[in-house]
């Protein structure tokens, strides 16, 4: 429905909250900035089901080619085979514990990779069925609930742990998604890049926190869509973290970096990311954390 001209948001998912009006957010041990990294493992199907919806112009490959687009599909597949290990090694070197959004086709078809993620103590969060099957308003509520359940079941089956966090494939939602992921028992949602602090969402049942990702430093947003230079990407990460760390002395901030193994896991990009992380992790009052830890700390903070 078009907006009605009245106070607050034009949807039911959260309340308007200007940051200067909020109580001070305190991270554990008085840290100023919570830094996390969210790795996306997104499967693109060679032959998606007839009714599936994907982005018109998904990233990867060269130009949009008639199906099967070997370049796009294999470019993305590089992440599952090579890039993810490079990224995990890098994060481990800087003691940044990884959070991994994993779709069900990845979880079920890459058991070796799932075991590897668990050995590295990654937190797995739900990420739909596949990047070639988006959750949009074109599917009905029943189907959407089934997709959410199926995705969580698959991750639980593969890893033994049921996720508490969620990122919709390609960050695309229907207008029911926050309500349905909360009803499925999830605790946090990463689809809304609109803040520097977690915030409470309003849902009919359950209890849902929004954990915003930092879109401008997202590798796909910056490097693929905006085509910024690697130097500029590095500068974005370092200066954002520095400013958030400064602001976080008054009220804690978080910064979730979104990393795609097929993109920032490429050999020519990894050294840039390494330089950025080596700078950022020098900040003195930094808390390196996974998604659910940040959300739990937000919920425990008396604010």
């Amino acid at each position, binding site marked *: 429905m078009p907006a009605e001209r009245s106070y607050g948001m034009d949807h039911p998912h959260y309340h*308007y909250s200007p940051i200067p009006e909020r109580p001070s957010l305190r991270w554990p041990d008085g840290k100023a900035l919570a830094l996390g990294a969210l790795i996306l493992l997104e499967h693109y199907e060679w032959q998606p089901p007839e009714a599936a919806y994907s982005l018109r112009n998904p990233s990867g490959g060269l130009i949009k080619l008639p199906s099967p687009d070997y370049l796009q599909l294999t470019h993305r597949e590089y992440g599952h085979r090579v890039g993810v290990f490079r990224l995990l090694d890098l994060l481990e070197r800087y003691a940044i514990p990884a959070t991994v959004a994993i779709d069900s086709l990845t979880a079920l078809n890459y058991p070796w990779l799932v075991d590897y993620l668990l050995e590295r103590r990654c937190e797995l969060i739900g990420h739909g069925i596949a990047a070639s099957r988006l959750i949009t308003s074109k599917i009905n509520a029943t189907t959407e609930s089934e997709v959410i359940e199926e995705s969580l079941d698959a991750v639980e089956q593969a890893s033994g742990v049921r996720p508490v966090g969620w990122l919709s494939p390609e960050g695309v939602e229907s207008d029911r998604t926050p309500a349905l992921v909360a009803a499925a028992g999830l605790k946090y949602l990463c689809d809304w890049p609109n803040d520097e602090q977690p915030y409470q969402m309003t849902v009919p049942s359950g209890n849902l926190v929004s954990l915003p990702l930092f879109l401008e430093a997202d590798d796909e947003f910056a490097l693929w869509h905006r085509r910024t230079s690697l130097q500029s990407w590095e500068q974005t990460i370092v200066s*954002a973290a520095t400013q958030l760390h400064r602001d976080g002395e008054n009220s804690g901030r978080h910064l979730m970096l979104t990393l795609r193994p097929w993109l920032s896991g490429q050999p020519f990009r990894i050294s840039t990311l390494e330089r950025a992380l080596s700078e950022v992790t020098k900040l003195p009052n930094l808390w390196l954390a996974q998604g659910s830890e940040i959300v739990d700390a937000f919920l425990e903070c008396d604010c």
Partner: protein
Amino acid sequence: MVDRPRITWPGNARVALWIAPNVEHYEYLPPRDPQRNPWPRSPHPDVQGYAHRDYGNRVGFWRMLEALDQHQVRCTASTNLAVFEHYPDIGKAMADRGWEIMSHGIYNTRYLSALTEDEERAFYSDCIETLQRHTGQRLRGMLGPAVSNTVRTPDLMAEAGLTYHADWLHDDQPIPINVKQGQLISVPYSIELNDVPVFLQHHDTADFVAMVKAQFDTLYAEGAESGRVMALALHPYLMGMPHRIAGLEEILDYLLGHKLVWQATACEIADHFIENHYEDFVQHAQRIKGVADAS
């Protein structure tokens, strides 16, 4: 430009500088427009696009405000007027500082392009009435909502009693716009010194800072001959980001560090021009047209 009457600004300033934060609301589920889809990335809603812009109202506006306050900038806020209804804290912050509110329509997802003449007339009444109700300010000018217009826009703006239109990129000085009745001028805005197009593609903060300084240097030099206008168009959801705010501070330090700058609001520039230069510019335009007619 080279043959015009000379513009003088107050204090013999060379450049009249107006700074325009665009304070906006993009709808979650906007009405369908026959010509333009605000969220083409996915079927609506596009929560990523929506939330990116929503960041401006939750966080970015407030960080930008600190930098603008420190430099005592008198802004001309290009405002989707429904912001006063959705986010009264933002409305109050702007009103308390005495910023000029320029209409940027009601929502950034409601375009003028497909409106009928009567609908467009009602739109101006709505804008005027909304601003009056929330701030007591009289509406003086407009940047079309998401820079949309119709062929009738200048005539209907003048008929509604507005003074200036900011959608004309055709000059470095205010220019009289021909309208059926009343009076309307353009006040130059910028779609180049504007964080949206700059950051839409591969440029980033350092590039923007360099562009703004270079633009200013040229206008400041040329302004010794005849006054120039410079607009700086900003969006809280972009320039209020943590990695860009130092760039805004650098820009403000640089621009306001020059002596012969008149940091004014758009309607102050418009009023000064109308009072002192409008007639000369109209006569000059007629003289130029006469040369064309004679040849």
